[in-house]
């Protein structure tokens, strides 16, 4: 093995590993399927080229390109990263809340195909199909690029930069910001309802991944000194996807392993096929592509988590300190007779307390069917308001409109005196209006504790910039959040499962996780959609008592529930819906006295 071979191998491995780390960050961590990933690497390559090269008139116009600024190293590589990152910005509109992930992926794929077509055909831009050649190597002219010392130094820089990228993505992922990205990956609608701005999160991920891809492209062109559209066809993205899937999406070591196995490995294996045979010239490359396609399908079937699966994040709970605290706190919380307190507040309290949530004339149509028709209601501070009605009465639709998951056809909603009708769900959550979902909606591949922590607003580490600044910057916020989460887990008796994946819990436990997660946002108004469905009656009663206690402290709850015993015991007032309209409102005792309500719902 000569040193040229080794240098070549190491540089390709570094470049591919970098690209795979960027892609893994997007696809494995944040769930953004960027089928156009290769154009970010391509853009970085071209940027590094035209930044480093002299003006295209310098060598007699044998190739034409824009730029030609002849900048010294390392500015071309810096420029490559900047251009790769900036290229992500036009795609912001594709990755918002509304577009399905697979449609956005198609949009990015199509973009990759067409950008390649355009660059291939439009020669003045980047010399078209022929591509750019004679790209200067870094510090060419100062150092002699032909020496093996130079080559080794280049290799070292590439490997160090790759290691730097690895440390960067790890720092991002193992932060509250990274946890938010993983939450978005597991369930974006729920992340939205907890106050996460999906569009800005996804844009951030496209920018970081794009910058990493751009840098890898810059390093690559500086080494091979040529760059043309044939090097970055749309299918090259699929190779990187294959690498990330095989290595293990969401695991950064897996991304590096995948890079070594797939792009580098394929290149190396084909070296051993003798070139002096009678095979058709295109056969081996074609079969390579077939093999990559097969690998993707086979791995997704037999080992979708990859060779190195995403590892579980264990977060240590400060158990000793909490034990002391809970000794004083816990029994009191659970044994306190909540009903007595409530009846005292119930008679005089609700009518006097201010309205925190108001809906006026809310209507929602689904293709001509009015699921909710002209509903107006008010919810007062400190109440645990029940919402009942037969199936199809429009309860969940109403809740979804109140929370911003579903836009109303007409009507207005105000929360705490602020008109929130036009606000998207995540902004309403930030105002303090938070919902839970009727269907299981835990973040499956986050532990129970992480599920809770993911909902905490205002953690300094829950932003790209904050995550980059590191644990020293956000560590104290995190510790405070862990303490809150632990107290909540203890209160609901789920401390033992804090380190388990939420997706592995029983149905009842998952409902609890969801309620606790909503509570972690410290909501002013909490909208619960059948929080006790599938929960053991004893546990349901315990949830009810906790909610009453929270309402006493000033929180407001609007709760959809079918179990009338729960309504009887905890809710006051109760709103009855039927066929999309509000039928009546009052205490359960009052409602039972009204014939139209009984006929609509309470019979039996």
């Amino acid at each position, binding site marked *: 093995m000569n040193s040229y071979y080794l240098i070549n191998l190491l540089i390709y491995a570094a470049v591919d590993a970098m690209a795979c780390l960027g892609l893994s960050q997007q696809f494995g961590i944040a*769930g953004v*399927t960027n*089928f156009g990933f290769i154009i970010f690497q391509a853009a970085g390559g071209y940027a590094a080229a035209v930044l480093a090269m002299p003006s295209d008139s310098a060598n007699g116009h044998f190739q034409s390109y824009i730029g030609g600024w002849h900048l010294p190293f390392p500015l071309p590589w810096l420029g490559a990263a900047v251009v790769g990152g900036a290229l992500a910005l036009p795609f912001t*509109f*594709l990755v918002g809340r*509304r*577009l*399905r*992930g*697979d*449609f*956005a*992926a*198609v*949009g990015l*794929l*199509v*973009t990759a*195909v*067409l950008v390649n*077509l*355009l660059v291939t*055909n*439009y020669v003045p831009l980047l010399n078209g199909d022929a591509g750019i050649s004679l790209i200067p190597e870094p510090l060419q002219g100062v150092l002699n690029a032909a020496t093996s010392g130079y080559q080794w130094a280049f290799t070292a820089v590439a490997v160090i930069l790759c290691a730097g990228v690895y440390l960067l993505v790890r720092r991002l992922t193992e932060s509250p910001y990274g946890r938010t990205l993983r939450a978005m990956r597991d369930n974006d609608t729920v992340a939205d309802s907890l106050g996460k701005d999906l569009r800005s999160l996804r844009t951030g991920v496209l920018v970081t991944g794009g910058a990493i891809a751009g840098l890898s492209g810059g390093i690559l062109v500086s080494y091979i000194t040529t760059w043309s559209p044939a090097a970055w066809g*749309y*299918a090259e993205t*699929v190779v990187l*996807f*294959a690498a990330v*899937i095989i290595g293990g999406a969401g695991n950064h070591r897996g991304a590096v392993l995948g890079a070594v196995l797939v792009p580098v490995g394929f290149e190396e294996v084909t070296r051993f096929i003798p070139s002096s045979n009678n095979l*058709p*010239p*295109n*056969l081996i490359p*074609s*079969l*390579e*592509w*077939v093999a*990559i*396609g*097969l*690998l*993707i*399908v086979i791995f*997704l*079937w037999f080992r*979708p988590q990859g060779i190195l699966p995403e590892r579980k994040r264990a977060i240590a709970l400060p158990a000793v300190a909490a034990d002391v605290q809970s000794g004083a706190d816990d029994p009191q919380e659970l044994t306190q007779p909540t009903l007595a307190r409530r009846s005292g507040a119930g008679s005089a309290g609700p009518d006097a307390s201010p309205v925190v949530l108001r809906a006026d004339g809310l209507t929602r149509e689904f*293709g001509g069917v009015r699921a909710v028709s002209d509903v107006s209601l008010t919810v007062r501070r400190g109440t645990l308001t029940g919402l009942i009605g037969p199936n199809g009465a429009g309860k969940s639709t109403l809740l979804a409109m109140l929370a911003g998951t579903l836009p109303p056809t007409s009507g207005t909603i105000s929360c705490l005196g602020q008109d929130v009708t036009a606000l998207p769900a995540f902004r309403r959550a930030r105002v303090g209006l938070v919902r839970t979902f009727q269907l299981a909606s835990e973040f499956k591949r986050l532990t129970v504790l992480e599920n809770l922590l993911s909902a905490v607003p205002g953690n300094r580490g829950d932003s790209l910039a904050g995550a980059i600044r590191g644990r020293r910057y956000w560590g104290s916020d995190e510790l405070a959040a862990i303490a809150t989460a632990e107290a909540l887990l203890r209160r609901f008796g789920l401390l033992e499962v804090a380190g388990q994946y939420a997706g592995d819990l029983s149905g009842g436990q998952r409902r609890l996780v969801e309620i606790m997660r909503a509570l972690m946002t410290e909501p002013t108004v909490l909208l619960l959609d059948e929080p006790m469905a599938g929960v053991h009656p004893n546990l349901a009663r315990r949830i009810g008592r906790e909610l009453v206690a929270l309402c006493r402290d000033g929180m407001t709850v609007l709760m959809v529930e079918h179990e009338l015993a729960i309504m009887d015991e905890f809710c006051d007032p109760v709103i009855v819906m039927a066929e999309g309209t509000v039928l009546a409102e009052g205490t359960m005792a009052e409602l039972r006295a009204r014939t139209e309500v009984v006929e609509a719902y309470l019979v039996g």
Partner: protein
Amino acid sequence: MSLFLASLGFGLVTASVLAIAAVGFTLQFGVTDVLNLAYGAVMIAGAFIAYVINNAGLSVWVGLPVAVAVCSGGSVALNSLVYTPFQRRGASPITMVIVSLGVTLIIEFGVQAVAGGTSVSYHLAQGPTLQAGGLILTAVQLGVIALSLVVMAGVHGLLRYTKLGKAMRATAANRMLARTCGIRTGRVITLTWALTGALCGLAGVVFGIDSGSFDATSTDVFLVLILAAVFLGGPGQAYGAMLGAAVIGIATEVSAAFIPADYKYVIAFVILLVMLGIRPAGLLGARA
């Protein structure tokens, strides 16, 4: 003006090819819920099957039904061997798209491995050139347009008047509900793969006829046109795809009269991205 009319003629032919492909794609997606990006690869496989038969001395028009049959059977096999098992396991839509990309590579480069990397063309006389009001079309081009019109009428009749068509529409609208209404959705889905696979093979051969020469990767860009037509009309909407194909086919060719021909696909690309960004349900997808 004559340039405009001449390009309009080309546009009609492209729109005809595109309509066959896009209607097949959109029905496939609507009924089976698989965004099958391997559609373009199956198309080019069909084009090459007809080429092999044509190259053996028979007419393209003999190769055409063979390609249709093979693509139909192949699509059914693709679904039952790959897509359905993944769907049964609860694979997310995005996993399905990645699987379909893997399948794309397998088929497209499998074809290239067998056929080699060079372009081929059918041995086909274009027939007499016909002129009408400034439009200039060859007999073969007219044949392609007529074939497309017949296929569109057939799809319309199928969806509108047959039991299978109604079952397909019901399955597309709500698979669970269709099943509980007594529709054998599994059978409907298999038949849909057979039908859309046939349309895909047909589209592949007429694509080969229309484009003159083609290689194994020729449908990469054509798939963009298909997607643009499908998303313009609304994914899953057969009539939307027809409308989309007409708009995209004519717009790309007419624009080629005014901008360099290499960039004619840009308009399709822009339409697709605008639709994805602003109205992913498509023009006719308001009810969805």
